[in-house]
């Protein structure tokens, strides 16, 4: 024992210090766990609580005189959703117009207005919708999936549409090249054929 550098007194102090350190680390660790996972539980709880409704705003679409009965125009909302606005009457009231999403509820292809057939048509799988957006044929008809409608209003002979304005989605990217892609497309299942250049 003569070689032991620590006296009894020092050993006691050292063990006291050790038990204090053990206690302190246990408290710190428990506190850290509670704070960390507690925060996460709070975040999860907040996530489950219903979110605030979508922020929308009224956007100018066109003046009434530039659209005749039977005309339709493509409109891209600030968040990139594509909408077809069609004039189906000549009263000059908001009831003349209908704004429908041009994204087919089946697989998301682009729907367009066919004035000669008085219908909306999706070239991907021959989806057909009546002038009010109700699905009448093709896969959306079978599934009973209609085109979502947007609210419109007329003020001072100008047409406005209420659209969602919040997004970080990149959905606007598609619409730039979309027109050239589907122009003249007869609408057939080949569009699902992935064996095209660029895809291995």
């Amino acid at each position, binding site marked *: 024992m003569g070689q032991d550098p620590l006296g009894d007194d020092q050993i006691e102090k050292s063990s006291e210090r050790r038990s204090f350190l053990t206690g302190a680390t246990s408290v710190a660790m428990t506190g850290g766990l509670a704070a*960390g996972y507690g925060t*996460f539980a709070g975040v999860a709880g907040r996530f489950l609580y219903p979110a605030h409704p979508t922020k929308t705003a009224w956007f100018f679409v066109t003046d009434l005189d530039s659209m005749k009965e039977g005309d339709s125009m493509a409109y891209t909302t600030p968040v990139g959703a594509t909408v077809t606005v069609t004039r189906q009457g000549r009263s000059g009231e908001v009831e003349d117009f209908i704004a429908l999403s041009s994204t087919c*509820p089946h697989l998301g292809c682009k729907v367009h207005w066919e004035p000669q057939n008085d219908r909306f048509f999706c070239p991907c799988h021959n989806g057909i919708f009546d002038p009010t957006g109700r699905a009448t044929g093709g896969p959306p008809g079978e599934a009973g999936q209609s085109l979502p409608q947007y609210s419109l209003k007329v003020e001072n002979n100008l047409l406005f549409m209420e659209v969602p304005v*919040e*997004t970080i989605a*990149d*959905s606007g990217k598609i619409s730039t090249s*979309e027109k050239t892609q589907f122009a003249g497309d007869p609408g057939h299942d080949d*569009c699902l054929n992935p064996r095209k250049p660029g895809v291995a």
Partner: protein
Amino acid sequence: MGTVSQWFTDRIPVSGDDLKEMTNEPVPNHLKRWWFCLGGTPAYLFVVQIFTGILLAIYYQPSPSTAYESVRYITEQASFGWYIRSVHKWAATLMVAAVILHQMRVYFTGAYRKPRELNWMIGMFLLGCTLVTGFTGYSLVYEQLSYWGATVGANITDSVPVVGPFLKSVMLGGDTYNQQTLSRFFILHGAVLPTTMVLLIMTHLTLIRLQGVTEFEFEDERGTEKKTFSFFPDHLYTEIIMGLVLMILLSTLACIFPAMMGARANPLITPEVIKPEWYFYVTFRWLKLFSGTFAILSMGFIVFLMFIWPFIDALFRRKNKNSELSVWIGIIAVLTIIGLTVWEASVAH
């Protein structure tokens, strides 16, 4: 107090001491090294995935008309939705990485050798489940990568000889991508695969407990008397610290690189370049190097070899007891995998 514990003891006839005896396994000293915690890491991340996955499933709607919109809702509108989704995405990425590192550690330390061959095979199943869960996961978002990735995946399945077309139509619920496809992927991703993985993980852990962890001795430990330390509380503390570090890492990644929304899936527009997630780069490069059926069959053969590797290694070691052949083959395999991944990552096509 006594009556309460008596009440439970009457109904659950296991004493605290028995329970301690059963679970408090002595842990070999080498597990104090951090890189031996790579098995616990994917297990922890799996729990994170279950938890965040359930939360995401509350808002997610698996149909082509609503999927993208519901993911957008989660990302942009639901409170902290971006955080939950980003943690889910990053935990998936880290889980794949951790599973691969864990497998490499087991391989290069020879921990798969007799009597642990079966556990290696269960591990291979878990690797497969992890990868398929990853694939079905990013297919659910219904962005361009989801749609075309699933379509390319279906075509790869199609080129499997004999059973390919059947598997493809089971996978897609039809000949082409259709309205039933997403719900299949959703059920696979959220129910079938996780349940399978829970069962496999339980078997994996039970076998570890029954066989004991492979014992290693490192140069600096030679001669030390106590070869093990106790599971409770020492190893548990290690795992808790690992969990906290991972949670901090996940939160940091989620904040700096949150999961974003890509372009919405469009069956009419084939993207110029389509790439799967990084963990499929090897497979993707391999498929581009060789023609359809050969690429599939050779890939299947390689996976089969990996699966039965403990027995191949045993053959090597029967010839030469100290054969290091497995290690050299492993090094070549790892370098090849890294090479093909970097190659695929650095080129457009």
